[in-house]
């Protein structure tokens, strides 16, 4: 990480800033645990106070003024919420179409924005005895199935960006073929942006493959590609993402 060593902020901080900036004000955002939660709180406290966060444990639209939650079911998500039931209620309203964005993390990703947060190893052979067992879907698969668009956020390491991933936990653009999501019965447009410790990507409208659009401070098109396990498409003009 020399490239960013001389700056006053870490890649971990920068990814949160980037995540926050991507979020539009006054939208309903289904917020996954971890980085999405941190970035959403930052967005609400800076340029997007009108964001309506939805947490899968049930809370809709809390002000989050009592602090950063440690869990998407945290007491801090219930205080000053507009609505708080349970998981079914949160996922039902998402399936209905109330969530403009799903903001979700993962451990491994492919060029079409399909995410793995279940296991490393060979599926299905090693499923019952995986090389590495990850936590599992949680609500990620549901967000990916039912939110109108999804924003994916994860550390940018070559081993996490693979042409083929061990297990598809959260469907993205599937095989990228036209209408693939609709044919599968999924709702929503699927992955919209990928935010990492090195760059921001979108998806090519025709091929639905991941495409580099912004580099984070200290990164270049080359350095990002070098840390990506598959060939990245590159937008006509890649612009640098300003530091905080």
């Amino acid at each position, binding site marked *: 990480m020399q490239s960013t060593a001389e700056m006053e902020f870490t890649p971990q901080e920068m990814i949160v800033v980037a995540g926050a900036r991507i979020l539009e004000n006054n939208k309903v955002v289904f917020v996954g645990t971890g980085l999405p939660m941190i970035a959403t709180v930052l967005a609400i406290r800076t340029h997007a106070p009108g964001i309506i966060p939805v947490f899968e444990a*049930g809370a809709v639209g809390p002000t989050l003024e009592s602090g950063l939650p440690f869990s998407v079911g945290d007491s801090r998500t219930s205080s000053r919420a507009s609505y708080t039931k349970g998981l079914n209620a949160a996922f039902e309203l998402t399936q209905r179409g109330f969530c403009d964005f799903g903001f979700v993390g993962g451990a491994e990703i492919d060029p079409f924005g399909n995410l793995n947060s279940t296991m490393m190893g060979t599926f299905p052979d090693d499923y019952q005895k995986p090389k590495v067992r990850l936590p599992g879907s949680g609500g990620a698969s549901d967000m990916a199935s039912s939110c109108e668009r999804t924003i994916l956020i994860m550390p940018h390491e070559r081993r996490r960006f693979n042409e083929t991933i061990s297990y598809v936990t959260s469907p993205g653009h599937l095989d990228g073929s036209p209408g693939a999501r609709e044919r599968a019965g999924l709702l929503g447009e699927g992955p919209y942006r990928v935010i990492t410790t090195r760059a921001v990507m979108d998806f090519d409208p025709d091929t639905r493959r991941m495409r580099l659009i912004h580099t984070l401070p200290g990164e270049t098109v080359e350095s990002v590609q070098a840390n990506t396990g598959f060939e990245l498409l590159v937008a006509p003009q890649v612009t640098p993402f300003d530091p905080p």
Partner: protein
Amino acid sequence: MFWTGLSPDEARKALVRKDKSKRDKCLSLKEAVDTFIKDGDNVAIGGFVNIRQPIAIAHEMVRHGFRDLTLSFQSGGMAIDYLGGGMAVAPDHFSIKRVEMAYWAHESFGLSSVFRYLAENGLIELEDWSNYNMSARFKAGAMGLPFIPCRSPLGSDILKQCRAKVMDCPFTGRPLVLLPASNPDVAVIHVQAADPYGNCIIRGTDATCPEMAMAAAHTIVTCEQLVSHELLTRTPKDVTIPFFAVDAVVHVPFGAYPSSCRRHYYFNKEHIATFHALATRLQKGHPEGLKAYYEDYVFGVKEFGDFIDRFPVRKLLEEQLSEMENFERLA
């Protein structure tokens, strides 16, 4: 056998036979666990990750010892870790055969090394679902339906290893998932307040606790406050678990500790980290530390009150105070 708990027909019959009258159901935790949980049962675990986890019940289950349990939950944290850890340190005394789940870890507090140890060594049978899948499966069970339709996990590999079926919707012609209901043998749940009949008030997220209680053949509830029926039902709309869905009511203050319980206490992050560190040592081949922890905190104590007594009063007050900042109010 397709159904891992009760089949829809068995679940209906169990409820029809049951005495659903309004009666005092207060028991000791020992009596409750001894009476309502059996070897081989499918046990639904309430709460969500480290929110309102039924820790006291999990400890008592491990102390009691059970064989070949199936654990069903959406997202689990410390309660599941305590059960899994019990199997890791005393496999002949306590064992889990299978888990039906969406997530087993600790969110901001990290992965579950207990889960990694059990799964990566192939010691438990896995069936992955999503959070909505598990929640909707309990809901279907609570509705007396054999299945409920859903969009997820369409397009994912979850479909390839679970019992869900895909069908073309007879109204729209588009694919839809049918999730088989979950009717567990027992649901174990911690709530903020209950009356002696079993009416429960939950603060903050209900998680999937009401659905679990209505779906299960039997339900054990522990509560922070055991209050009169009159007080509890003064606001009937706050009641999310009706008494006839509950079989045992146990008054256990701090019953979700070191996980958090809205209006009562926030997480004990340090203790969760301590347990996590020992579990990680176990996963790396050094079980001694976790064994010692169980001897000390679980097997070595007569009841959950003794576990709570291990914590300095000022630490418990600290968690109560943090929660007061999350939900400020006058006594």
